[in-house]
Every structure is written in C-alpha cells, then in structure tokens.
C-alpha cells in the first residue's frame, strides 16, 4: 500500500458567508470586503450574536450573502437603524456596511451623530469614489477631475465641491474609538484591511465606542476598467487622495491584543 501525504486546509470559504453567489460585477472588491468581514465574524465566533445593517447601494443585498441576522436600511440611514438596534440589544454585535453615497452623501448627518454619540457599532465604509448601483454618478468621494455620469466634464471642485475624507473628519469626534482607512487593491493591503476590521469589531465588543474602517474599493464597471486595472487605479489615483492611515485609535483600543 502507498503512503498518502496528509493534507492541510490552507483556506476555505468562511462560515459566516451564506452560500448565495453575489450579484456583484466580476472583480468588484465589495466581495473582498464581504469575505473579510465574514472571516472576522468566524474568528471572533460572534456570527450568532451579530446583526448586520445593509445600505442602499450595490451592497443593498449584502443581507443575502452573510449568514447572520440582517436588516436593510433606508438610503443613508443605516447608522440610525443600527443605533435603534444596538440601544435595545447592547450585548449584540451590530455593524453597518455602507457605500460612499450612502454614508458620505445622503447619510452624512446619521454617521456623524452616531460617531459623536460614540454609538457602540462598527461601520464598514466602502469608498469606491462613485455611485455604483445607480450607474456611476459622482459621489462626495469622487476624485477631482474624475469623469462620472453626473460630472461628464470631470469633477470641477470649484463647482461640485471637494472630495470628503470621512475618516479624517469623523476622527475629530470624541465618541470615536477606532477610525482607520485601508485599501483592497493588493494582498498586502487586504491583509491589513482584515486586521483593521478585526480591531473594529473588537472595539465594539469591548464597548470602546464607535468604530469605522474605510476601505478603498473598486468599481470596474463604472470606472470602465478591467478588474485588474481597477486595482491599479485605486493604488495610483485613490491612495494619494485618501491616505491609508490610522486616524483615531483611542488609548483603550491601542491596548487591544488579538
């Protein structure tokens, strides 16, 4: 008889993902963000006590892809809805998953106040510099000069305003415990993004205040690029405008070891 070399499982689809295939365009890094969140829920073993809040945006169907309880918020109001849930169920893990139109445009008041209140929720903020679901209009995060279907001549900052750096802005609020920006454009950054997501959820379970991870993400479809080109575009054009940094790590959070 022949000796069979024992094998080891290096990676498999996380349990916290349901087995529904996503509707995202091929190569869209929304999927990577989903996967990382699911891996963290697995590692922290909180899937059964987690409630997710989906936004209105391409990730509107996020609730189909995670294997935990989920609600679907009105456009921009996810932080308010999450607040309502967390206030009556303080021992549950509550997170919102929001795009840049949802969080930084129509939902500005709700995210700022959730942060200022130090709501003990975690926000996964997908910054893809565009409105994906509605077909590529300008977002508050659209880069200067970037052409979109509602800034056909390119974003003229004098007329259409300047990109809003949400992480920088929110980190000025006392209620925030952990606010950082990461990117999903290559393996190294994906690893860092996952660490950050883990820390954000740890911040919440320890009751250390509002936590948010802003993720630079791709929209190949509306950027008119291939998935690979889109990753390059993040690196070449978005990272310079949206530096990958820790903007707020409260002392208590800094002590967390995972």
């Amino acid at each position: 008889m022949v000796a069979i070399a024992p094998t080891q499982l290096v990676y498999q689809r996380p349990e916290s993902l349901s087995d529904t295939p996503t509707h995202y365009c091929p190569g869209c890094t929304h999927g990577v963000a989903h996967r990382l969140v699911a891996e963290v829920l697995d590692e922290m073993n909180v899937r059964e006590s987690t409630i997710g809040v989906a936004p209105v945006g391409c990730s509107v169907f996020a609730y189909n892809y995670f294997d935990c309880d989920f609600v679907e918020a009105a456009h921009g109001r996810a932080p308010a809805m999450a607040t309502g849930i967390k206030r009556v169920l303080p021992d549950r893990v509550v997170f919102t998953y929001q795009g840049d139109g949802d969080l930084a445009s129509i939902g500005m008041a709700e995210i700022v106040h959730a942060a200022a209140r130090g709501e003990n929720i975690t926000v996964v903020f997908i910054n893809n510099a565009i409105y994906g679901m509605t077909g590529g209009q300008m977002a508050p995060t659209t880069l200067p000069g970037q052409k979109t279907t509602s800034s056909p001549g390119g974003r003229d900052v004098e007329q259409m305003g300047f990109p809003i750096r949400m992480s920088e802005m929110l980190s000025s609020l006392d209620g925030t415990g952990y606010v950082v920006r990461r990117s999903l454009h290559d393996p190294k950054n994906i690893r860092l993004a996952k660490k950050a997501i883990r820390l954000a959820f740890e911040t919440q379970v320890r009751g250390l205040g509002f936590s948010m991870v802003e993720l630079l993400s791709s929209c190949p479809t509306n950027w008119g690029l291939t998935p690979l080109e889109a990753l390059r575009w993040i690196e070449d054009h978005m990272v310079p405008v949206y530096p990958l940094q820790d903007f707020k790590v409260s002392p208590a959070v800094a002590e967390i070891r995972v």
Partner: protein
Amino acid sequence: MARELWKGNEAMAEAAVRAGVQAYFGYPITPQTEVLEYMSKRLPELGRTFLQAESELAAINMVYGAACTGVRVMSSSSSPGVSLMMEGMSYIAGTEIPAVLIDVVRGGPGLGNIAPSQGDYNQIVHGGGHGDYHPIVLAPSSVQEAIDLTVLAFDLAEKYRLIVIVLADGSIGQMMEPAELPPMRPLRTEYPEWSVRGAQGRERRILSSIYIDPIDEEVMNYRLMRQWSEIEANEIRYKQYFLDDAEYVVIGFGTAGRVALSAVRAARAEGIRVGLFRPIGLSPFPYAQIEALTEQAKAILVVEMNAGQMLDDVLRAVKGRVPVEFYGRMGGIMPFPDEIEAEMQRIIQVPPVLNGDPRKKWLQRFGKVIHAE
C-alpha cells in the same frame, strides 16, 4: 388607579410606558415636546431606552431598527417633523413591522405656527409616504382617550405588524384633564418569530422592504391590501351622541368633535334634533356608519380644524344622498362652540341643497367671518 390631572402629552407618554414601550426615539418640537421630555426622565428610571435623535429623520429610522428586534417602540413629533418621517414610515410599512407614532398637529403649511390644528389629516390618513399601504390612525378628543388610544396603538401595531399613528392636536397635548392610567404591563420576554435579534441556534432572519422582482412586490402589496380589508372590517371606531332621533348630524373628530359636542348640547337645549358622530379611528374610516346616517339625516355638517380634509371622505360615504355642509377653522385656530351652533341654526333656517361643493360654499361664507374680504 384613581383619576389624576394629566397634561395630554405627558399622559400619552406615561400610557406608552404602561403599555410596555421599550424604547423611545424623538426630537423636540412644540407642541409635542413634553412627550420627549417626560420620556427622557421616565424611561432611564425604568432602565429602558430613551434617545434624543439628531432629527425626526434619524428618529424614525432608529424606531425602524428597534422595531426590527420585536420590542415595543415609538416616536412622537408634530407636523413638520412628521413630514420628515414619510420615507421611514414607508419603509416600516414595507417591512411589515409594528411601530407607534404620535403626531401632535400644529398649524401649517411650512413652519406655520404651534397652535392646535388638524391640518395633517390628509398627510397621515391618505398620504404617508410612497407606495401602497395604510397606517391605522386614531384620533383622541380628550386626555383620557389619548391614554386609551396610545395603549391600543401598541396592541394594534403588533397585531397587524404596521404603523399606528395617534393623531392628536396641540390642545390635546397641552390640555390638563382628569384621567385614569392603566396598570403597568410587564415588558415582553418573548419575541415574535420574525424579530431580528441574532441567529442564536436558528436560521438567520432578514427584515427588508426590497422586492426587486415586481412579481414578489405585488404579492407583498396584495398581502398588505388583504390585511387592510380585514382591518377595515375589524377596526372601525367612533362615538355617537344624541343620534337616535337626530334630524341633523354633525361630524367631527378629535378636538373639533368635542367642541362640536358643546354646540350640539346647546342646540339640543333649544330643542333642535341634532346629534354628533365623532370618528375615533380615521383610518380605517367609518364609511358604512356615515352612509347609514344618510337615512335619518336631513343634512350633515362636517366640522374640522382644517380646510375640509376629512370632508372628502365623508362625501365619499354620503354619496350625494343628503346635503353636506362644512365649517372649518384653519391655521391653528380652534372654533368656539357658538360658531358651530350658528352654522347649525343657519342650516335649519335655510335648508342646504344637494348640489355644489360644500368647501366652496363654506369659503364664500367664511371670507366674511375672518374679514379676509
């Protein structure tokens, strides 16, 4: 419990507490603010949730979130604030979850003023956000009724998984009257099978108002409409005064209804055979009961603190069978009983005719009342 003197707003707040409200989210606005202020003191005492939201828009979405967990939850506001809740109300309706809202109506449109009004009837009863759905709407005319209807609101909201709105006005909110509160109900410890509280040892649950395939949305809409037919059959509420032998019928809800009661009493004292029909539930609306009144009534007088919003629903019920006349005060003015009595006298002296638009006729007369011309 003995009768005590309660201010309407505080009475409704305490009634909600007794009914087991677990969380309140709201934003200050006159003439409703006492509800929020009362809750800010009372709920923390009881270890329940009070939160002053950054806006009515946030408040209704916090209510939306909390309601998804299966607890009893509410907000309260007044006209402009309620307008900001329309999207959220539509989402709650589309998600088929229970919630309670108190609207203490003030004069409008726009910023208007803070005086008592019934100008939100249309927005609350007929409008109320986009899409096909109906909220249940209850209109108290006294502090006691405000208490009873607030408690009922929570029960109905839960029974039918929809929004129930208590439509009060500034005078109900600000007035003090003797009233009795129900005993404190225990908070629920078991939660509905649809509630989202974490998938502990069970399949995950999703609460959403999306039905991206119109086929599914239509089935959902159909479900809502079937349920609404059931509600129309079971949840009609009204109160009748002196109607048995009445030849003339006054119809008014809330404060306008109780002011009309004084007028009707005065007219009765003069031997006029007039009665009062006061709808308590505005949605569903007592169409059949009003239609029935057309068999005894020589004429119907509708009285409102607006430009004739419920009037249209009364006209639908009356089907042109008897003359309908209208008298309203707008913009935050409460009618005095003598104004309504005068209208009755007028109707008796000059029996009104069937044809013509009651609102237009009223406007003709009314210009003089307010010296607008």
